[in-house]
């Protein structure tokens, strides 16, 4: 039960780390964004808005960015935010995070005066601000310089940011208590997405980590939690029938079926990949993964549907033909000899497991002999790194700020395609100076994607959450935005 203005959130299991610089775990980043903030941020239309940097300027050649930090901002420990802190933080981020390495290769950060941060790039990039704004995996958050330097490559041990909430109590694996930061200096403008006014109305937020999903639902029903996030899909009907509760959702991940092209042979043949791509029926797969039509949608593209700046129609019409005869023919042409293919998945991400089971059945029906191997997360990572251990993998990937950061296209990622054309397009996107160039290249990339079939795109899945009716104006962006929440009585 929540007294006064305490919001109690029944949350999933505690993320392994709250260090946004290094972890790609989405909930870790979205929880951390209550504590830590980035230089720039995204509004609900995914447009760049000021964050800790109240303004910035870009040099003519696009190789130098000059950020002016918001004055008066203080860290939770009372220390004022200075350019040195920002530089130290961003340097750590640049060294240890994937986007940092990708986009900011060769870049340098400099503190000018107290409140100016200067970024110098070797070549202009279109995606500098987007990358800095993304708050979903390995976000470029700012923390005191001393902490950033001390931690280096090790996970953080102190959580001191400038965010609207301050971490006051953290009982491991049990709950986390966030208190409104009274010395908070908000971003300007009206609230929209993670941008704009962030001054919280709730005095206190209790994140209770509840591993068991039925318990989350039940706790919500009895009023122990104000919000249950994520809500198991099978509880949706239950919540809808309950007058005291309401439902919400946020776009979360994309489901992919990756091929292992490294393991001797089969999926190096494009026909084999093509066969699977046209042979499977995505709707049942998505139904198994997210149950209710409202919470999944087909998507044949590399970027998510709500990333408006990355829209294209390439290949839309030929998507999901469910063409079994042709698939079988292609398989035969590719010389499929009935050998057993290993499909790996994990139960730690339900949507991955559930899709895998259905995919296996569908492939079985195409005459492909598939064996599902399900592992716990840590083992899964180990297994997928072993090229000989698997053929197919179901992977759910979070949205990325631009196509060049898609991990499934990274040749170093297990199952990542190795194709000269792809490398070329990606290199060009990375170097693209303007958004328009990048969008052109993206269309090219999509074309390549449709013909090469590096992996089978399945669709997008939303996560669902539920709350009691007294929770007002809760907003979402890849997860809950807690500072917007108000509690009515």
């Amino acid at each position, binding site marked *: 039960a929540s007294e006064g203005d305490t919001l109690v959130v029944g949350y999933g299991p505690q993320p392994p780390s709250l260090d946004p610089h290094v972890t790609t775990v989405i909930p870790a980043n979205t929880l951390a964004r209550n504590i830590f903030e980035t230089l720039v941020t995204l509004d609900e239309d995914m447009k760049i808005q000021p964050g800790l940097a109240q303004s910035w300027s870009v040099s003519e050649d696009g190789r130098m960015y000059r950020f002016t930090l918001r004055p008066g901002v203080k860290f939770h420990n009372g220390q004022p935010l200075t350019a040195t802190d920002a530089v130290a933080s961003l340097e750590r981020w640049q060294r240890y995070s994937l986007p940092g390495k990708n986009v900011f290769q060769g870049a340098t950060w400099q503190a000018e005066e107290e409140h100016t941060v200067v970024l110098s790039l070797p070549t202009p990039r279109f995606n500098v601000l987007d990358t800095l704004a993304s708050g979903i995996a390995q976000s470029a958050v700012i923390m005191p310089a001393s902490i950033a330097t001390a931690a280096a490559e090790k996970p953080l041990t102190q959580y001191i940011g400038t965010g609207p909430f301050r971490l006051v109590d953290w009982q491991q694996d049990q709950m986390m208590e966030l208190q409104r930061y009274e010395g908070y200096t908000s971003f300007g403008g009206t609230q929209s997405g993670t941008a704009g006014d962030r001054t919280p109305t709730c005095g206190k937020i209790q994140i209770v980590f509840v591993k068991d999903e039925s318990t989350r639902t039940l706790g919500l029903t009895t009023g122990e939690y104000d919000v249950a996030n994520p809500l198991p899909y099978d509880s949706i009907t*239950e919540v809808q029938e309950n007058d005291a509760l309401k439902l919400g959702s946020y776009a979360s991940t994309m489901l992919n079926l990756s091929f292992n092209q490294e393991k001797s042979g089969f999926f190096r043949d494009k026909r084999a990949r093509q066969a699977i791509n046209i042979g499977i029926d995505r709707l*049942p797969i998505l*139904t*198994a993964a997210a149950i209710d039509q409202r919470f999944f949608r087909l998507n044949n593209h590399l970027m998510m549907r709500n990333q408006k700046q990355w829209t294209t129609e390439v290949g839309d019409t030929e998507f999901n033909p469910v063409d079994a005869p042709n698939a079988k023919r292609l398989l035969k042409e590719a010389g499929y000899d009935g050998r057993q293919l290993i499909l790996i998945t994990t*139960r730690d991400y339900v949507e991955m497991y559930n899709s895998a089971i259905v995919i296996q059945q569908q492939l*079985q029906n195409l005459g492909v002999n598939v064996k599902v191997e399900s592992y*716990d997360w840590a*083992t899964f990572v180990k297994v997928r790194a072993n090229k000989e251990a698997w053929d197919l993998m179901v992977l759910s990937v979070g949205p990325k700020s631009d196509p060049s950061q898609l991990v499934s296209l990274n040749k170093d990622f297990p199952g990542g395609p190795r194709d000269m054309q792809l490398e070329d397009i990606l290199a060009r996107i990375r170097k693209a100076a303007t958004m328009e160039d990048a969008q052109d290249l993206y269309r090219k990339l999509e074309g390549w994607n449709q013909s090469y079939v590096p992996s089978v795109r399945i669709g997008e899945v939303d996560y669902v959450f539920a709350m009691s009716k007294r929770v007002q104006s809760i907003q979402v962006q890849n997860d809950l935005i807690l500072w917007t929440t108000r509690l009515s009585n």
Partner: protein
Amino acid sequence: MATTGINDTNSERRRTVAFRAMRNTQLIIGFGMIGGMAFAAVVLPHLLGLDPQAVEPLNRLKAPSLAHFLGTDNFGRDLAARILAGASTSLRLAASVTLLAAAIGVAVGILASFSRLLDHVLMRICDGLMAIPALLLALALTATFGPKFSNLLIALVIVFVPGIARLVRARALALRSETFVEAAVAMGASDLHIMGRHIFPNVLSVLAVQVTFLFAETIVIEAALSFLGAGVPPPAPSWGNILYDGKAAIAKAPYMVLFASTAMVMTVVGLTLIGDGLRDLVDPRSGSQPEASWSKRLLRLVLPCTKEGA
């Protein structure tokens, strides 16, 4: 003598195991239940054309109907088919785990009661083993030898043995000081003989309870382990994973848990009946018992464990 009217061969026959087994209703019903289950698991799916793996996500969690007479699971798979197919996995696993664990546990427990040194060594090993988590063991085994049935078996057996061993040892220690054991010692019987003929039959009653418990426990633990990739590999059904899936959908489709548990309860009841029946066979005091009234015998059909040793 006060005995009359019974000739030799007749009373001898009265005591033979085969004869008494035939008249042991519990034993027969127990075997009937387990045998029936096994039979159904093997024959019914073919007969009814049930496929435990055919998914139909659009038809998930449907209540029992003509098409799916136990309903469907969270992938729209036929629950009846899965429970039947799961029977063979679960029963095989549970039976081999309990048999192995019981055999080793009994051996260790009895041995420990016979020698101070062995007792010390074996029991300390057991203390250590008790602390090793099944999960870690199963994961490590799976990693080393690949996902196999035998890993699960080994992990669970290792985890269960210490408990059985300690329990058996406790009983055996008390028995060691009984005069009839001394009598056997005095006649020059080897330790092995004493263990087998005197200690073992007397630990059975306590053992039987533990064995039924472990049987049920194995089925449930398997589910937890396969959840983490160390159990029966998907999508092969087992009662354990039906229960786990059912738990997630308990509000929407309570019958999943209900049917799977019913299958389990029936098995364990059957097992208990067999256990009790076997005990009647070895326990002497069952012979001179006046025949129970037929109403009681009828009741025994429904409920297990009547007249243990009586």
